[in-house]
């Protein structure tokens, strides 16, 4: 395949490994079908290859390392969606993509198709280190201090098939950012890594541990303020080794590292890591400048040349087309290079399923990335897609191409940009449906002028306590619960996943599904009445407290 931007390039060793792994899984599938393997024996094997059995069919979760894709890979997703699914893919809150209608016997063929474009489904399930996630604006954002993708790739290689960490007490999630503005929810990960320039000219890493959502939402705590680059892998190895040794394996609900960190306390956890480091052969894990450079060399960089008048062209087009102007206001981010801009494609078209894309839309995204963004795309943990490097004078044509396939919603970061897990419509773990209420909320607040008036307001919806929709981190969070066949939603307010991460507080008793949308509408109305000047929802909530919103939600005034 041709060299692409923003990605680590596989070599023959990588490809041979993937091929062998698919061959192995293909044999396992055959043995399951002929009865040589029982379901109990086969289940951990299929999960190691990203294959779940959900409500209606098998679901294949494909890894998108640190959320970066090239056009060929996106076309491969479209191919999978058409040939093996029902025409859709679904982007998840882990920057991955899921296919919901997979047949077991087709899986090896799908994995071969994906391997042809250097993709796989390894470590998208199981009690191992999962796909390392990163900043969707990596390498492009004006506010970035360090491009985190090189170290994300180093972490990917270190964690892939790590023999010691293949059977951890529970799944393990790492996110890495290189910006002071946390766009990866670093404090809600088992390990959150924030890269920044170190005093020695190399990169240093702030390390958070013990964050997470799910049944026990906890904000991660700083373990180290600035780990030198050469000790990054040793430090992570020690952190996870302590967890692997002492994490609980007797209770699935208490098995994550966050429970261990809470039980020991951050000081004791740090001491345990230090003890581990003292007895490790740290030199073996040393990340030398040469090693970092060798990985960096496997990334191609875009040639960021734009005409001198690119910004003027964009300004003229914005002045001519107010719909485009609104989209630019909400769905773009400042780029580090003159004449360029970052564009966010909202997968939250009002009334549609958050994160869903059709095969045709995937093909269009691939084509647009080739025309306007150096053939590169990123997925986001907020279930959107990003074009990282767009010339400002070409942004209008990109936007028109998106609008033609229903992907021009100007709602990034606004109330319509709803994050939702697949919920009970697809997921075997869910208790309630997430998607229908997301669709209703999307439709209720579809008016783009209203969304812009409301401003930054993130709604997150989970269909069960496992919190794949990150409801605890939503400014407004909804958790679906089942009461004997009837869906109710428990509401939380004040959650956030940025550098001021906080767990949302439960507002009161769960509301019936029919009342929840109206309750949120009343909360929003109350916010618009209560806010002072240009206060955001979170700022108003902080100033006035939850009482007015509680009154509004339960309609007691």
């Amino acid at each position: 395949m041709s060299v692409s931007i923003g990605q680590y390039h596989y070599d023959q060793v990588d490809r041979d490994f993937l091929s062998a792994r698919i061959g192995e899984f293909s044999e396992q599938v055959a043995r399951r079908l002929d009865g040589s393997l029982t379901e109990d024996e086969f289940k951990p094997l299929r999960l190691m290859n990203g294959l779940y059995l959900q409500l209606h069919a098998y679901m294949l979760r494909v890894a998108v390392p640190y959320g970066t894709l090239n056009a060929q890979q996106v076309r491969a997703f479209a191919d999978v969606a058409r040939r093996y699914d029902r025409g859709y893919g679904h982007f998840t809150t882990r920057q991955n993509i899921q296919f919901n209608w997979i047949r077991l016997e087709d899986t090896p063929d799908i994995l071969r198709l994906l391997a042809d474009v250097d993709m796989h489904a390894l470590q998208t399930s199981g009690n191992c280190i999962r796909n390392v996630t990163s900043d969707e604006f990596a390498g492009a954002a004006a506010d970035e201090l360090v491009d985190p993708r090189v170290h994300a790739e180093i972490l990917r290689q270190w964690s892939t098939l790590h023999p010691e960490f293949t059977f951890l007490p529970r799944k393990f999630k790492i996110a890495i950012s290189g910006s002071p503005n946390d766009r990866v929810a670093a404090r809600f990960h088992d390990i959150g890594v924030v890269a920044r320039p170190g005093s020695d000219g190399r990169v240093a890493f702030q390390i958070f541990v013990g964050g997470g959502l799910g049944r026990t939402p906890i904000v991660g705590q700083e373990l180290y303020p600035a780990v030198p680059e050469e000790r990054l892998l040793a430090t992570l190895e020690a952190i996870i080794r302590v967890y692997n040794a002492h994490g609980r394996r007797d209770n699935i609900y208490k098995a994550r590292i966050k429970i261990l960190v809470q039980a020991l306390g951050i000081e004791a956890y740090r001491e345990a890591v230090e003890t581990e480091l003292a007895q490790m052969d740290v030199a073996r894990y040393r990340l030398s400048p040469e090693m970092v450079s060798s990985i960096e060399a496997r990334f191609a960089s875009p040639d960021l040349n734009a005409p001198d008048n690119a910004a003027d062209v964009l300004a003229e087009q914005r002045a001519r087309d107010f719909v485009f102007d609104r989209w630019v206001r909400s769905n773009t981010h400042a780029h580090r290079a003159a004449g360029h801009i970052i564009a966010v494609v909202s997968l939250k078209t009002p009334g549609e399923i958050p994160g869903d894309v059709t095969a045709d839309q995937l093909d269009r995204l691939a084509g647009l990335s080739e025309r306007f963004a150096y053939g590169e795309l990123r997925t986001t943990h907020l279930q959107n897609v990003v074009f990282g490097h767009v010339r400002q004078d070409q942004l209008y044509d990109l936007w028109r191409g998106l609008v033609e396939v229903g992907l021009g919603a100007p709602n990034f970061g606004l109330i319509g940009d709803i994050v939702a897990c697949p919920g009970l419509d697809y997921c075997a773990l869910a208790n309630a449906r997430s998607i229908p209420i997301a669709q209703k909320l999307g439709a209720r607040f579809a008016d783009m002028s209203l969304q812009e008036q409301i401003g930054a307001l993130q709604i997150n919806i989970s269909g069960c306590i496992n919190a794949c929709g990150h409801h605890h981190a939503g400014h407004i969070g909804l958790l679906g619960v089942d009461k004997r066949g009837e869906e109710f939603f428990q509401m939380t307010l004040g959650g956030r996943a940025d550098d001021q991460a906080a767990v949302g507080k439960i507002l009161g008793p769960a509301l019936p599904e029919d009342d929840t949308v109206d309750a949120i509408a009343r909360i929003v109305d109350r916010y618009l009445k209560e806010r002072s000047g240009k206060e955001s929802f979170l700022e108003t909530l902080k100033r006035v407290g939850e009482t007015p919103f509680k009154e509004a939600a339960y309609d007691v005034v």
Partner: protein
Amino acid sequence: MKRALRVGAGEGVVITANRLLDGAIVWLAADDIWLTRMQRANVFEPEAAVERVSALQSRAQSDGVVGIYEIAVRPEETGPMPVTMRERIRAFGPTVHPQFAYTAQEGVGA
């Protein structure tokens, strides 16, 4: 996936599973045949269903099914109706894609 079975007054139990090959949902009908149409599922008393599930587990491979369990249903004119939203979605398809709904005539996976 099996969940705690709660059977209310006037309710019965049907037995369900997923087809091994494609994961499609099936229900146990007369003559121990697995069908993709829930309307034709056999309705059991709860205790009888538990015993039946146990027996069916041993031949799941030859039947080509996986994850056998029992669910509560209410009798309705069109046939047994699952009590929980989860099982209604399994029986009739995801609520968010009308084109993927399972019809009484064609059943699951049509």
